[in-house]
């Protein structure tokens, strides 16, 4: 394993040092491991807090700033943060209008955020939570852990963040966050596994002729393995999975997301196929992002997330945002 790190144990601390050095608009609490907007809290504004394991950068720290998150809590690599971080973050951003926890649906994240929400309530902070579970690769069932939260997290953070800036109350921001999640679906494909530093070798092995379909963002293998093929066909496999779950139509927002080790060149090729697929189905990608946004360390591959837009969602997507990884309108 070759990585640009000082030591496996120092990864998160050292990343935070870099984030603090790079972004004067952010404030990093190294002890509690929280990335804040420099000028948090904002009185009267609903605050958004998210968090999750490291290894998904720029998620979530790269989305802290005007129009998106108020704070982010990074856990260890691929490990949910702990309740202390979330409590500290919630206290640090609460401007009296309450805090929305944006939680990706993984047992670890859910349990830790649940504990944090309870303890926040004890301290008088109003907390609402939204669970992101957009990954159609996972069967949705009452008897399982349910669908994973992946690329739609970015949609939820951006759109709910924009609504929060308008001064909307917590219940409304939470409702909209929920709506964005419900309107979004994702599917991921890996060409190679990433290497978790603590494990020291790739999480799984793929031969030169195989790909994994339905992977998540934690280096876990997917649901099935198939033979490698043209980008067009791989894009179709992914889009079919999305379309089979909820037929695509109308205006959509698309995230063509790299898993960390795939160059932008290839992501654009796949995006071209995705756009063509949508058109074939009578849908349109009226807004999109192409790049590394919700990654899985150095995994090679991509995920595609599609959100069926409403006028309100489009307007809030277009609203100004100013974060390390997403910026427009200011």
């Amino acid at each position: 394993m070759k990585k640009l790190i000082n030591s496996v144990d120092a990864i998160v601390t050292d990343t935070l040092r870099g984030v603090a050095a790079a972004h004067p608009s952010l404030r990093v609490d190294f002890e509690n491991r929280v990335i804040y907007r420099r000028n948090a809290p904002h009185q009267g504004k609903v605050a958004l807090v998210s968090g999750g394991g490291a290894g998904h950068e720029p998620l979530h720290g790269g989305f802290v700033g005007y129009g998106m998150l108020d704070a982010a809590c990074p856990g260890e690599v691929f490990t949910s943060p702990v309740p202390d971080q979330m409590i500290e973050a919630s206290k640090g951003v609460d401007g009296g209008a309450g805090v929305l926890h944006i939680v990706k649906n993984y047992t670890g994240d859910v349990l830790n955020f649940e504990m944090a929400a309870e303890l926040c309530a004890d301290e008088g902070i109003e907390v609402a939570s939204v669970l992101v579970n957009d990954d159609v690769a996972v069967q949705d069932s009452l008897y399982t852990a349910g669908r994973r939260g992946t690329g739609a997290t970015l949609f939820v953070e951006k759109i709910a963040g924009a609504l929060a800036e308008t001064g909307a109350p917590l219940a409304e921001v939470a409702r909209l966050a929920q709506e964005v999640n419900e309107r979004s679906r994702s599917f991921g494909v890996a060409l190679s596994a990433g290497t978790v530093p603590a494990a020291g070798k790739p999480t799984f092995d793929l031969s030169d002729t195989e790909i994994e379909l339905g992977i998540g963002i934690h280096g876990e293998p997917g649901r099935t393995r198939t033979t490698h093929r043209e980008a067009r066909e791989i894009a179709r496999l992914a889009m079919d999975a999305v379309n089979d779950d909820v037929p695509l139509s109308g205006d959509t927002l698309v995230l063509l997301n790299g898993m960390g080790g795939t160059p932008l060149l290839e992501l654009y090729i796949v995006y071209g196929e995705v756009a063509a697929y949508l058109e074939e189905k009578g849908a349109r990608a009226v807004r999109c992002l192409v790049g590394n946004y919700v990654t899985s360390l150095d995994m090679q591959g991509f995920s595609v997330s599609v959100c069926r837009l409403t006028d309100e969602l489009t307007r809030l997507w277009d609203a100004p945002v100013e974060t390390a990884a997403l910026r427009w309108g200011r």
Partner: protein
Amino acid sequence: MDTSFFLAWIKEAATAVQAERDHLTQLDAAIGDADHGANLDRGFAAVRQVLADTPPQTPGAVLVQAGSALIRKVGGASGPLYGTAFRQMGRALGEAPEVTPADLVTALEAAQEGVQKLGGAAEGDKTLVDAFAPAVRALAQAVQDGANLEDALQTATAAAEEGARATVPLQARKGRASYLGPRSVGHKDPGAASTALIFAALRRAAGPA
């Protein structure tokens, strides 16, 4: 069993987790996200630190402090689950300076209940419950049958290990491994494996075999 017994358990557990760290992580790589060993090792190191910094005076306090440290430091699914297990045990023991085998059974039953309430997993879902539940059952039976502590804990450990082994053919319904669907079959659940380690540590805390 007094305070030092429970401190010894924690120490044994921390040592075992550290020794098996890579193995646990490799189990997690197969059907999870390759961090279970690192998670628990970090957690138990923190537990030892806390117990050294503010030495608890009762068995219950040892376990509550240990559980809180796990919740504060582990993250992931196993942090809140093991943290809750230790905290519930500790709360069940209350202020008592001495713990009888029957108390231990009660405490472990409370722990199991806490874990299942929090995580929603039943036996057969291919989680740490599959090692925890049979171990608690075996211990309860042995204690009821009048076995001495060492033997009872030996029985519990064997049941935990057997329970962990028995996760291999199961398809996961909870936790990260559930995402793999049928592909989760054929691998041992990492949390069940660490639960077996923790029961074996409890057995060792009771003295040499």
